[in-house]
């Protein structure tokens, strides 16, 4: 037994965000059980305070990078970036959920508890340096979000969404875990750096096909979580069926965390066998962009369209991973940050607009929103322009860096096809703009209630972030570039 078995204070400090989130989550669950009938829950406020505290802890932990708990966790710039990102997504989700939950008479406290637990998993994923931690992180994050997807227990679509997410999610995780078992069997370790060293040191002796198969099994698990083709089929159904704020959360938070760990595992641990996985990821990236964009073309439901759009955007991020360079990693980071804001904002716009039981979620229901609610429509316009990739929005620089990185890695065809895809994509985002601004108000817009304060705050904050990232990208990009050194 090692002499330093007891972890030092510093090591606890490095997982402080997770500790705070866990304690607060448990606390909320207890308080909720003790809450008397008819008493107002203050779980939302507690959650906000927790998230702010966790954010501060994440920033501070990022200030003293290093390993913790025998290298199971490694806090570095890359991990800190994503930790902050998922916590901010959590913050936005809390703000946009309150009015939705009240409208549906839902048990409010549990929801926030689950949200916190889900964030624990994601936050852990961002800094985990060990495949078992990756598995546990994914499961903590997923199990909580399975429940969130079906949070309105009496709603049929919620149920279906949760069931699909749960069954398929567990199924894909089993593949991932099997891959972990194999890589453990081959290299004798589950530490990400350790695997890399083992592969590099004994490259001639390692049974490469077996390592490849293990990598492939893990790829299935990650590709499922980031909804890459052909593992994307769950995403549209789940996003469509889940409560709107939960869809917003799932399309940004867990996705960012999954991409973080995907990037880390493949670029660090499986970097030595990159020539094996790069070609297939090339194809997956292209297929993901194509399926996402073309399926989105004909959607009528906003949430479903955004789901397909999120698949397409996952394709762009995969391009950056295929680029397999520091510039590519920085592009992944920047893109996911910008994507999170525009996507959460777009979902948030329909949180209150959709009314009880999400009655108005069709694109045609947005008709005349520009006249009736110019604020919401303007914010939505910013997100759509950013999703299209118009300059001066975050989406433009996100794509710019991705394709720049891809070209620098000589991925010429992937860049050409990716840019063509983003040209097609303009069509369906533009349709929303046309409906909002150029159609006469219909029933939905005429009777639309004023958005709640929380939702408005989310709309404004996301739009602001989208513009700031688009006009002054250096603010985030500098940090991304400095911390993109995960390829050792």
């Amino acid at each position, binding site marked *: 037994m090692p002499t330093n078995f007891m972890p030092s204070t510093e090591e606890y400090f490095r997982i402080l965000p997770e500790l705070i989130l866990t304690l607060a989550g448990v606390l909320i669950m207890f308080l909720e059980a003790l809450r008397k009938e008819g008493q107002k829950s203050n779980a939302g406020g507690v959650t906000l305070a927790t998230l702010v505290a966790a954010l501060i802890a994440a920033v501070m932990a990022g200030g003293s990078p290093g390993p913790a708990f025998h290298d199971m966790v490694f806090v570095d710039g890359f991990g800190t970036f994503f930790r902050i990102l998922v916590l901010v997504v959590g913050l936005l989700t809390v703000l946009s959920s309150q009015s939705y939950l009240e409208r549906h008479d839902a048990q409010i406290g549990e929801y926030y508890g689950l949200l916190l637990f889900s964030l624990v998993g994601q936050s852990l994923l961002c800094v985990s340096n060990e495949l078992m931690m990756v598995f546990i992180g994914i499961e903590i994050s997923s199990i909580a979000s399975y429940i969130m997807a079906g949070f309105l227990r009496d709603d049929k679509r919620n149920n279906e969404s949760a069931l699909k997410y749960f069954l398929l999610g567990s199924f894909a995780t089993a593949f991932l875990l099997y891959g972990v078992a194999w890589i453990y069997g081959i290299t004798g370790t589950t530490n990400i750096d350790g695997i890399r060293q083992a592969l590099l040191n004994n490259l001639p002796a390692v049974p490469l096909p077996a390592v490849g198969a293990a990598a*492939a099994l893990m790829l299935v698990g990650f590709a499922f979580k980031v909804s890459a083709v052909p593992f994307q089929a769950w995403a549209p159904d789940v996003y469509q069926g889940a409560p709107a704020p939960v869809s917003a959360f799932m399309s940004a938070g867990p996705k960012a965390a999954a991409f973080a760990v995907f990037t880390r595992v493949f670029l660090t641990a499986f970097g030595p066998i990159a020539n094996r996985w790069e070609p297939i990821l090339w194809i997956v990236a292209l297929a993901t962009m194509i399926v996402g964009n073309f399926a989105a073309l004909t959607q009528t439901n906003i949430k479903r369209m955004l789901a397909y759009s999120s698949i397409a955007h996952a394709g762009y991020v995969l391009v950056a991973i295929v680029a397999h360079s520091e510039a590519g990693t920085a592009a992944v980071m920047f893109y996911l940050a910008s994507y999170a804001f525009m996507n959460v904002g777009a979902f948030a716009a329909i949180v209150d607009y959709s009314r009880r039981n999400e009655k108005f979620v069709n694109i045609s229901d947005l008709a005349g929103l520009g006249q009736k609610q110019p604020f919401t429509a303007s914010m939505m316009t910013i997100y759509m322009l950013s999703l299209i990739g118009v300059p001066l929005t975050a989406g433009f620089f996100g794509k710019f860096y991705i394709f720049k990185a891809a070209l*620098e890695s000589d991925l010429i065809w992937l*860049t050409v096809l990716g840019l063509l895809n983003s040209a097609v994509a303009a069509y369906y985002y533009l349709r929303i703009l046309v409906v909002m601004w150029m159609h006469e108000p219909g029933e939905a817009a005429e009777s639309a209630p004023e958005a709640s304060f929380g939702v408005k705050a989310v709309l404004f904050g996301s739009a602001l972030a989208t513009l700031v990232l688009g006009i002054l990208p*250096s603010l985030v990009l500098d940090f991304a570039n400095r911390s993109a050194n995960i390829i050792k």
Partner: protein
Amino acid sequence: MHLWLIPILPLIGFLINGIFGKKLSKPVVNIVAIGSVLLSFAWVLKTFSGLYPLEEAHVEKYFTWISSGTFNIGFDLMIDKLNSILLLIITGVGLLIHIYATGYMAHEEGYYRFFAYLNLFMFFMLILVLGANFLLLFVGWEGVGLCSYLLIGFYFTEKFAGDAGKKAFIVNRVGDFGFALAMFLIFIQFGSLDFATAFHAAEQMPKETSCGILTGICLLLILGATGKSAQIPLYVWLPDAMAGPTPVSALIHAATMVTAGVYMVTRSHAMFNNAPIALEVLAVIGLLTAFFAATIGLAQTDIKKVFAYSTVSQLGYMFLGLGVGSYSGGVFHLMTHAFFKALLFLGAGSVIHGCHHEQEMSQMGGLMKKMPVTAITLFCAGFAIAGLPFTSGAASKDLILEAAYVHHPWMYWLGLLTAFMTAFYVFRALFWTFFGEYRGHAHPHESPISMTAPLMVLAVLSLGGGFINIPHWLESMTHEHHPHVDTLIAMLPFAAGFGGIALAYVMYVLAPGIPEQLASTFSGLYRLIYNKYFVDEAYDAAIVHPLEEGSRELLWKGVDAGIIDGVVNGAGKTSAGIGGVLRRLQSGSIRNYAAWVVAGSILVIVAIGVMGGSH
């Protein structure tokens, strides 16, 4: 010199009108909108006179916009001989059009919104022209496209206007794709997006290695230019864009935005000069566009459509000029075209305004007496576009045609034929509108002074603008030598102009029965050009429809029943499903989705485990 003030002033106008416009009275909106452009124009004049004669480019670096490793882009603005011309046109002509629009839009809903968009457009257009690197150029490029989309769709109650806006945006995306790709290649190749650095590097490249990559970059830039400047094959959006208010057509779709492609190519002439194939392509595209658009213009009956196709055609001339190496000719024509085409559109707007929103020329006629100022100024523009001697159009068009003659004589002859047709269809429209008897049912009246004053200013510029010696001004930048051609070759364009006008006079004033006879004799040909060669329909059938249908049919249903049904239902049960109907990728069934996961994982395992690394 605080170049930043030039674009910022309209931006401030946009912000004031955009945020508070609803509560402001019309005069205040006018003051903000016109005032911001006026100040901007004044600042351009002051800068220009301060820096005259601008032998060296004046660059102002404000801050580092993006810096990451080797990738550095500053927020830099510049002014030199080339963009000083454009700045004067944009702010000067823009000012006139703003003044005009206060009269034209006086009774429209969303008055403040219109001027807010117009000011925003000015901001992006000025960024486009002032930017000292490709990225800023691209920002402006996309921004003007966005504003164009907003303004085309301004009459949003009309479905057609919305569709036209969307079409403009989508078609331009194709062009922008080319531009974006070119930009990446430039960065990869030269390590910088700065004009100065990139062009210097391009010129320093050894000829043997540079040709391939430069040709690639230039062809992609041309793709971008064909989108924005409405050239074959991406011109289809511009005629539809006339659904927007007429001042917008004049400002964006005639004088400024559509010439961005010409500016971009001229700006990049250091690269084009070393890519002769690209230049050849550019010349052919320009010439063919000029010719085809002119033939379509022959048969249009909507007054704005005629001028729209003439814009496409004249832009074709500019590209022909650039392609045959006469950059100064292209830019010269850009300027004169800005004068006379803005005038044509504003005049057409005045007619439409006077006839209570009637655009069909069959419902006009005899308007010379009812609106004399509009008529006379429009005829001035007509003389210019027809290229009659001493007008501005003559000076620039002849320069292009002469350069074309030296390059390839057939280009000259086709260009000459186009010039003849241009004179014919423009004067056909003018005679049809202003001569004869009034055929409509409204009560036409002359437009207010706010509209006619800009017309008069532009008329003077259309006639006299040719005396501004652009070729001389640009000499030190483009280093071209001006070829001398036979007097006959130089004079023939005048003859073509007079001939076209004479023919139009005969057919539409002296013997008005001829056009109908001709149309019925050559009914097939007439229908073909009246329907613009059915290009829209062809695009619809060949691209738009398959794209929408394909995504429905192929992606969702096109999965072979054998694979997925087999996996899901097991052997023997395949046919027990929904009788031969193909299962869909997104069938909603959990087991189907799981089948995809399994199929995908087998594929991935085989690819990475077994096949991977074999190459």
